[in-house]
């Protein structure tokens, strides 16, 4: 009994220490976003919303935020669509050399983003193609396609085959089967891969940094903010992004994934 109590005590101390470590930077970030002063370090001078006003008044920051949203949704939608079609093709038809092809689709997952970005950059440079949000989007599809494909492909079990056969038997064409039967059945994994892609693209820095020029995404804009050193404005935008992500996550958890838990 005593030993059990002691180990529980140790467990509590350890967990508390690690949670402290995990939350320390976020807590400091959010706290000093309300700093009434120019430096986001102690002492805390008082509560102020001036830095939040500052970021919402910052045209470049807001433009970058919008760019990020556009690139994240568009590239994720493309990655999801391509991934779903490929998963459907591989799961339902026998193709020669399909193991190799599947390996090819997964391959970008194993390569650093820096290398993917550099490869695209060398080609674009040589071809003389200008950098823009389009090139960033292309890069983000490259990194998210393997993810979408893998998630959707792994959820495409054999048990769905007979349902599709039944639909075809009842007169649905291939495209209708895919749209009206397969896609709705796989909706949880399609949505999961879409939202995962959105978060990855939204947060991605190196590809967005190397493949964009004048129009940049939010992480790149925050990066240039950092050049001016410690600034409560960075705290404010960081806190906004954090709280918005948490809110989105909470909504998803309460709507999308709640259903799955209570069948």
């Amino acid at each position: 009994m005593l030993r059990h109590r002691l180990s529980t005590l140790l467990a509590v101390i350890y967990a508390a220490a690690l949670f402290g470590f995990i939350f320390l930077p976020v807590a400091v970030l959010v706290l000093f976003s309300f700093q009434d002063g120019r430096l986001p370090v102690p002492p805390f001078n008082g509560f102020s919303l001036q830095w939040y006003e500052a970021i919402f008044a910052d045209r470049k920051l807001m433009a970058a935020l919008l760019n990020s949203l556009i690139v994240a949704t568009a590239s994720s939608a493309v990655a999801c669509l391509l991934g779903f079609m490929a998963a459907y093709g591989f799961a339902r038809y026998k193709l020669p050399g399909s193991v190799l092809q599947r390996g090819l689709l997964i391959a970008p997952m194993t390569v650093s983003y820096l290398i993917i970005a550099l490869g695209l950059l060398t080609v674009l440079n040589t071809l003389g193609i200008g950098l823009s949000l389009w090139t960033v989007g292309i890069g983000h599809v490259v990194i998210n396609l393997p993810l979408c494909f893998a998630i959707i492909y792994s959820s495409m079990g054999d048990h769905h085959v007979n349902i599709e056969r039944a639909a075809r038997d009842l007169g649905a064409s291939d495209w209708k089967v895919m749209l009206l039967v397969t896609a709705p059945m796989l909706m949880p994994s399609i949505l999961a891969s879409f939202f995962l892609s959105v978060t990855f693209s939204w947060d991605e820095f190196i590809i967005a940094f190397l493949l964009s020029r004048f129009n940049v995404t939010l992480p790149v804009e925050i990066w240039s903010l950092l050049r001016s050193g410690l600034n409560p404005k960075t705290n404010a935008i960081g806190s906004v992004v954090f709280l918005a992500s948490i809110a989105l996550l909470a909504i998803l958890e309460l709507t999308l994934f709640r259903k799955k838990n209570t069948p």
Partner: protein
Amino acid sequence: MTTLSLENADRRKAWGFVAPALVWTVAFFVVPFLFMAAMSLWSRQGREIVRAWNLDNYLRFFGENALLKGLSNSLEITLTVTVLSVLLAYPLAWIIAERVPKRFQRTALILAILPFWTSYVVRSYSWLLVLTKNGVINQALLGIGIISEPLEIASTRTATVIGFVHFFVMLLTLTIYANLVQLSPNYRRAAADLGANGLQTFWHVILPLTLPGIMTGAFLTFVLCIGDYITPQILGGNNELVLPQIIMLQIGRRADLPMASALSIVLMLAVTLAYALCARWLKIDRV
């Protein structure tokens, strides 16, 4: 004949589904990658890239101390981070899986990875706030009187390691927890039933069974860590450059894409080597 034509029609349809993804991957991943590999064998002269095939870039890499140091810095930091993250995350995952009541586990886990949802750039920046000369840590330590001079943690390797470990502890807690809870509780019961004490059960049964999960997480940590530019750039500063920082220098200031390409290939070889070393555990069979 009819079956054959049916098969051909099927095959055409299948290609229709699969082709867009394959074309995209080839056009925007395979071709650029091969092009980059080719470029690593060219060189830059002035502002021009000269297509003269040679190994100069690689020879320069192995000849120049500053560049080699970049690789060794990368490897040292990455290995330290990987080992520390696993050692810190395993007990936390264990506590959540074993000591937290079932219905609170999901909440505990979501809490443990909550700071994931800060932007990656901002996360490194927040550590800078914490570790900087007049930051929270230094002021707290000075306040208690443990130190009399502020510690120089920011812009050191320690800061880089702390920033990385923070991120990967969250990631590994998630993967190790997932591994722990999917083990049948009967393994533990069987071991106890056959006379093993808690430590023996852990050492002979639980640890070996979670090893594949640990290795997968560790490999992921290695890959993401060694290829990252942000964390060492923000937290480590310019004192001890890691490979990605050197690559970015080649791209930016020196506009030397051939050298950047060669260094990227070196980076990739390091990852491949790590994979070869871990492959034994990554693919282990499980019942």
